[in-house]
């Protein structure tokens, strides 16, 4: 009997419902006329997402299905185990996460999708992507996993392509995306291949039962980590992220950034907790290093971006980096035998993943709403939207609070648990821990600090002050479906932050962590940590202070009302034009000075003097560019090398029949010698 008392087939029914609803969505996308297509297909996808959420939550709470078997033509023989869908607790969590995000994104998409994204292809691709993604965590064997994984990849690539089919940046983004996705897929394929070879089967159960060790385990770990890290957008495999997220339609960006990259996290957890649970110590150090580098690099890049969606994309790298760091710390501690603190770190990883899903979907959807209203995603051309788009700006604000990890949002809770796990590492007895943990702490702290700056900038420049372009000045609030999605998402951010206790307890089950308890209905208490976190109580305290303060303010406002003036700003003098405002580029300029190296920053001041009066300046142009050092130092040389090799390879096929005969002849001689030896 399951804890919920749900009958066993619920999970199976839920899985089946997702697949059927997905099919229904595709059917709707193909058959319904353009006018009602978004509504019909979008509703079906929302339903599929909700089904996934329900199924996932049931599985997270312990419900088990008997397994949904996929029939394939390839005769199922060793080492290929049957293809079965049956989420475990961890899988349930990620399925629920994906489902909620998909439901939000699709709901938003009903109002948002236009042009190619609302075409037959667009909605079909979105449905394939959504269902594929929801099913990934339900896979119980490598083939099913890869199948769902590739459906997710194919759907998202197709949708990415569908939007603005004739814009050059989209094509370039989609080539990057497709190539990196396939790289990830082949890493995974090779990794699972190694595991299947060592274990004699492809199902998780048989791999776990085989207890693979030695070089096979190491190879598999390296390959699979590389594959999952690519999907999770970790440095140095993050390059597809800041290219594809901005170009994708916003509901897809939201789903990709909030849910799809999480499948990389799920994979890492699956790998390190279930498939190869007894890895050596350096595995966890690899994860910590990957995570810390991604966190710091991601947020550093995010803080200097002026493209809103690109900023959010880099911030995804940061958050996934933090999550990976938490996983690494958890594994390091498990390996050191510090189980209670390790459990806290793992719960922190899950909380980070869940909270990121919540706030990042809100942020991307709000960015989509801005894009929808103004056609701009360049912060340098936005501004003043808080007055014009109150719902959007409110939702973005809450999302930004979450992303900046401020109380009382989900982001704060997640980072609180991560920090608590770090400071409670019993490092006195272990020199390695005594070095690694403080460094990790420092990096996490710097990340948090820069995150604050990033989101103050994003919100302050994008939504406050005065519009910096006519498009921004013409901004208007979005339609009902989009608003509902935004509000629900923002409420999730707050709700997860207000009641961390029950959330964390449910998550703890997914990684079988002990010592996570609820206090006072909402608060969170961790056995390994001697402090409780009760955001509700904190909120009450703050309200107790705030209410009298507000009352005093109201009284004062009655007595001394505000004066409406035409020229309040600009030192009380002349109204400054929008071009005089601080913009996103100038906002991050001090930071660029500090981190010139890793940002590949170049600044150029171009001064044009007056013709006849050389001391007078006619015009000044300031250009600041930042680049991605990983892309410039790693990928572009690799691409150039590839092209050069390609040119070299062309001499193989230079058209000379004598050369071709020579190949055949050489092969003949070689084979003759070979068989004669």
């Amino acid at each position, binding site marked *: 009997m399951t804890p919920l008392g749900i009958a066993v087939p619920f999970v199976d029914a839920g899985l089946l419902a997702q697949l059927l609803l997905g099919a229904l969505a595709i059917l709707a996308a193909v058959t319904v006329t353009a006018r009602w297509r978004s509504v019909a297909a979008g509703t079906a996808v929302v339903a599929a997402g909700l089904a996934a959420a329900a199924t996932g939550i049931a599985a997270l709470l312990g419900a088990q299905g008997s397994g949904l078997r996929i029939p394939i033509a390839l005769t199922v023989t060793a080492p290929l185990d049957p293809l079965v869908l049956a989420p475990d607790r961890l899988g349930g969590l990620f399925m629920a996460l994906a489902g909620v995000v998909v439901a939000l994104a699709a709901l938003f998409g009903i109002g948002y999708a236009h042009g190619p994204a609302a075409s037959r292809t667009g909605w079909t691709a979105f449905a394939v992507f959504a269902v594929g993604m929801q099913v990934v965590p339900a896979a119980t064997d490598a083939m099913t996993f890869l199948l769902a994984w590739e459906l997710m990849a194919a759907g998202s690539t197709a949708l990415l392509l569908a939007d603005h089919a004739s814009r050059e940046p989209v094509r370039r983004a989609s080539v990057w995306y497709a190539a990196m996705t396939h790289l990830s897929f082949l890493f995974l394929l090779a990794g699972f291949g190694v595991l299947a070879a060592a274990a004699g089967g492809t199902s998780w159960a048989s791999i776990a039962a085989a207890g693979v060790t030695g070089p096979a385990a190491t190879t598999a770990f390296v390959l699979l980590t590389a594959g999952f890290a690519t999907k999770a957008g970790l440095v140095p495999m993050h390059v597809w992220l800041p290219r594809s997220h901005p170009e994708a339609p916003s509901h897809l960006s939201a789903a990709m950034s909030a849910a799809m990259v999480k499948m990389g996290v799920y994979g890492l957890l699956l790998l390190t907790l279930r498939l190869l649970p007894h890895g050596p110590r350096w595995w966890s150090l690899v994860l910590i290093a990957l995570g810390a580098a991604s966190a710091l690099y991601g947020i550093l890049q995010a803080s200097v971006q002026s493209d809103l969606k690109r900023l959010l994309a880099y911030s995804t790298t940061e958050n996934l980096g933090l999550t990976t760091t938490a996983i690494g710390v958890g594994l390091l501690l498990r390996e050191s035998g510090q189980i209670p603190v390790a459990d806290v770190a793992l719960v922190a990883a899950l909380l980070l993943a869940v909270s990121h899903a919540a706030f990042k979907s809100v942020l991307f959807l709000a960015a989509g709403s801005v894009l929808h209203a103004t056609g701009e995603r360049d912060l340098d051309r936005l501004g003043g939207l808080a007055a014009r788009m109150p719902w959007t700006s409110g939702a973005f604000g809450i999302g930004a609070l979450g992303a900046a990890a401020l109380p009382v949002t989900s982001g704060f809770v997640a980072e609180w648990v991560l920090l608590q796990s770090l400071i409670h590492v019993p490092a006195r007895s272990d020199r390695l821990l005594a070095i690694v943990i403080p460094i990790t702490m420092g990096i996490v702290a710097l990340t948090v600090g820069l995150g604050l700056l990033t989101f103050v900038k994003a919100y302050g420049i994008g939504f406050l002050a005065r519009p910096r372009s006519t498009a921004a000045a013409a901004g208007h609030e979005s339609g009902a479906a989009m608003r509902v999605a935004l509000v629900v998402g923002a409420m999730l951010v707050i709700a997860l932050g207000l009641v961390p206790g029950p959330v964390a307890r449910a998550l703890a089950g997914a990684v079988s962590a002990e010592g996570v308890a609820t206090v006072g209905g909402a608060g969170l208490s961790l056995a390994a940590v001697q402090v409780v976190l009760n955001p509700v109580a904190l909120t009450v305290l703050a309200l107790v202070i705030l209410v009298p303060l507000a009352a005093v303010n109201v009284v004062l406002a009655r007595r001394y009302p505000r004066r409406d003036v035409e020229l309040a700003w600009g030192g009380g003098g002349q109204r400054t034009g929008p071009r005089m405002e601080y913009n996103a580029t100038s906002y991050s300029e001090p930071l660029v000075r500090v981190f010139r190296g890793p940002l590949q920053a170049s600044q150029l001041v171009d001064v044009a003097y007056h013709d006849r009066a050389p001391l007078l300046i006619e015009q000044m142009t300031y250009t600041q560019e930042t680049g991605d050092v990983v892309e410039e130092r790693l990928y572009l040389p690799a691409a150039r090398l590839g092209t050069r090799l390609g040119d070299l*390879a062309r001499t193989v096929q230079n*058209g000379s029949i004598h050369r071709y*005969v020579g190949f*055949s*002849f050489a092969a*003949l001689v070689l084979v*003759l010698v070979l*068989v*004669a030896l």
Partner: protein
Amino acid sequence: MSNGVYLQLLATTTGVLLLSAVLQVWGRSTVRAIGLLVLQGTALAGLVLTVGVHAGEAAAPLVAGLVLVVKALVMPWAMLRSARVIGVTRERSARVKPAIELIGAAALTLLAYAVSGPILGDRTDPATQAVPVGVSLVLLGFWQLLVRGSAITELIGFLMLDNGIATISFLTSGGLSLVVELGATLDVLLVVLILGVLAVRLHAEQGHIDISELRELHD
């Protein structure tokens, strides 16, 4: 047929085969090359007859006659016709220095002897001992494809290759089953005809048949 005569005939026919092959590589005249092809076909027919009669196969003269007709008459005739139509009697120029061609040919013959031994194992019957000649023919035929630039010479190289395979076939096993042999012979004949037609069209298209200039299709 006594063993001595058998050995003598075997040695003569295979010797003529090898000789004609080396002469092919040496010479540059197309007409003479076709003549050598006739010689080669005749020697091959002789070999077939010798091996067949020695093995006591009744169909041996028939098969030998077929070989003679196809390899020594029809194919050379077809080629000669193509060559006449095109009007080429000599290759335009050497792609590779003649010395290198010959040194290569010698090396390949040695290679043929070197690899044949291990492949054939410890068998000692005289026919098997002559197999390296067939392998040399194959390799030299390929060599011809590799170093010659004229369409007709390439064709001759291909036929030499085919003669080599036939030699090996008769020396090791007295030939395959009749259906297969017939089919294979027909195929080769058709290939030669097609190549002849193509060579004529090549000449019509570009005024010469130097195939090393066929380099329009490339990457």
